């Protein structure tokens, strides 16, 4: 039956029921959500719907932040925090990748270390801070150690999990072409495990920020955590929110950096 012979009454278009389930990148929405929320919050504070005691207005928070910048204390706090974060996370990550690699590659290391990792992973590292103080002193050592141990275990698990998931056929291929053991590890195993290792970095970086603040709240003169604790003790909620906002900003920057690293190292994927 030719199309023009189909009467309009009898013919219906097939209803569309596909589509969806495919996340697209819409970059503008994220900032809009932030701006709208902050505007609503400011409006609420100005009209008195949100009392100043319960939650300071965004303008007051911004004022507290401005004070931090003007007095130069921002750099003192942020610098101390960043130092602990970078040193602790880097050492924890290096050690974690090394241990994860040895578990992934050697059966003996796997047999010996996996139970140890399972036993130590769930311990809240902040509970060990007093011990770390005894071992590494009251200075930077104990804080760095807390972050180091906090990032170590998720990195170990992500790394050996990634290695376990490397396609064994690719390794057979390497062997069949007579590649050296080290070449197979360097050119096949590690690149194959890299996506898992990098997503492990996302988790370990967030854990590092949480532990950083906790460690600084327990004993530090400077640092974002110390600033928040002090503000809390004085019920200076505008400063407290300003400190929390700095942590959020830190989280965003870390997420962005890891995203950049993923796009750089995993450009072969999409």
């Amino acid at each position, binding site marked *: 039956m030719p199309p023009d012979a189909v009467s309009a009454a009898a013919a219906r278009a097939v209803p569309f029921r596909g589509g969806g389930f495919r996340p697209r990148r819409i970059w503008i929405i994220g900032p809009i959500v932030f701006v709208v929320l902050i505007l609503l919050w400011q409006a609420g504070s100005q009209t008195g719907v949100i009392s100043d005691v319960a939650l300071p207005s965004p303008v007051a928070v911004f004022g507290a932040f401005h004070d931090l910048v003007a007095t130069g204390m921002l750099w003192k706090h942020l610098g101390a925090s960043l130092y602990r974060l970078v040193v602790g996370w880097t050492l924890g990550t290096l050690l974690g990748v090394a241990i994860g690699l040895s578990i992934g590659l050697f059966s003996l290391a796997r047999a010996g270390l996996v139970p140890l990792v399972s036993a130590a992973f769930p311990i809240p590292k902040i509970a060990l801070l007093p011990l770390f103080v005894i071992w590494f002193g009251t200075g930077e050592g104990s804080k760095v150690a807390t972050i180091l141990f906090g990032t170590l275990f998720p990195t170990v698990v992500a790394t050996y999990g990634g290695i376990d998931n490397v396609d064994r*056929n*690719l390794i*057979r*291929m*390497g*062997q*069949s*072409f*007579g*590649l*050296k053991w080290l*070449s197979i590890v360097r*050119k*096949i195993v590690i*690149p*194959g495990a*890299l996506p898992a290792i990098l997503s492990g970095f996302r988790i370990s970086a967030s854990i590092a920020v949480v532990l950083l603040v906790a460690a600084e709240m327990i004993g530090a003169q400077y640092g974002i955590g110390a600033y928040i604790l002090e503000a809390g003790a004085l019920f200076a909620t505008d400063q407290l929110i300003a400190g929390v906002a700095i942590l959020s900003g830190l989280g965003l920057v870390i997420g962005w950096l890891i995203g950049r690293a993923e796009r750089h190292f*995993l450009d*072969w*994927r999409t």
Partner: protein
Amino acid sequence: MRVTIDGISHDYGRTHVLRDIALTIDEGEIVAVIGPSGCGKSTLLRFIGGLERPDRGRVLLSGEPPTGSLNPLTYIFQDFALLPWRTVEGNVRLVLEDHGIGERATREIVDDVLARTGLSDFRTAWPRQLSGGMKQRVAIARALSVRPAVMLMDEPLSSLDAQTRELLMDDLVELWARERFSACYVTHNLAEAVRLGHRIIVLSRRPGTIREEIAIDIPLAERAGRPAELDGVQRQVWTLLREEAREADRELTDAA
């Protein structure tokens, strides 16, 4: 170089995989090994290339590999086994890097094999951008780059569609005409076996034994033009395989 398979038997646990396999692959000869699924043909190929050890029996090599051969026994895999994080060129380079042959020689070999497989324009492409047929061409280029004496082909066309398979069969015939490589070509596809095998080894179902050896006298290059004769051979092979395949299909498997 000549490969002699000398009385190989193998078990995986209580599953008997291969029994008393003896055959030779002569220089410049393509031996097609065909059999029902699970008859141990891929296992046999892993023994030949030294990726696995048989319980009993040996694989022997005689004669010298061609001069400049970097990897005499070279595989082509069903799933292509390309590194997704390396480009076409990078995948070929991978197998040359450990041989210390220097940048200039490497570049010459890469240029040469990419030209021979029609991949020169795809140098910088990622594997994910290529069709199945192109991926297998990359794997063939990679195999050629190490100047193999014997190609060990493990169902190389089985994950390709029928049209691509035809094209690649023509490519392989043409390549053989130039290179005269020896090959053990494992397949479950009758058409591939009769098109590419100088000899066809028909394996029984598990435990795999050699049921029949069929030599085909028609030169490879002429086969595409003589379908009637090939059809006859194909039917002969199928008669041998039919019962085995039916029985194999009804078996329970515990083997890996």
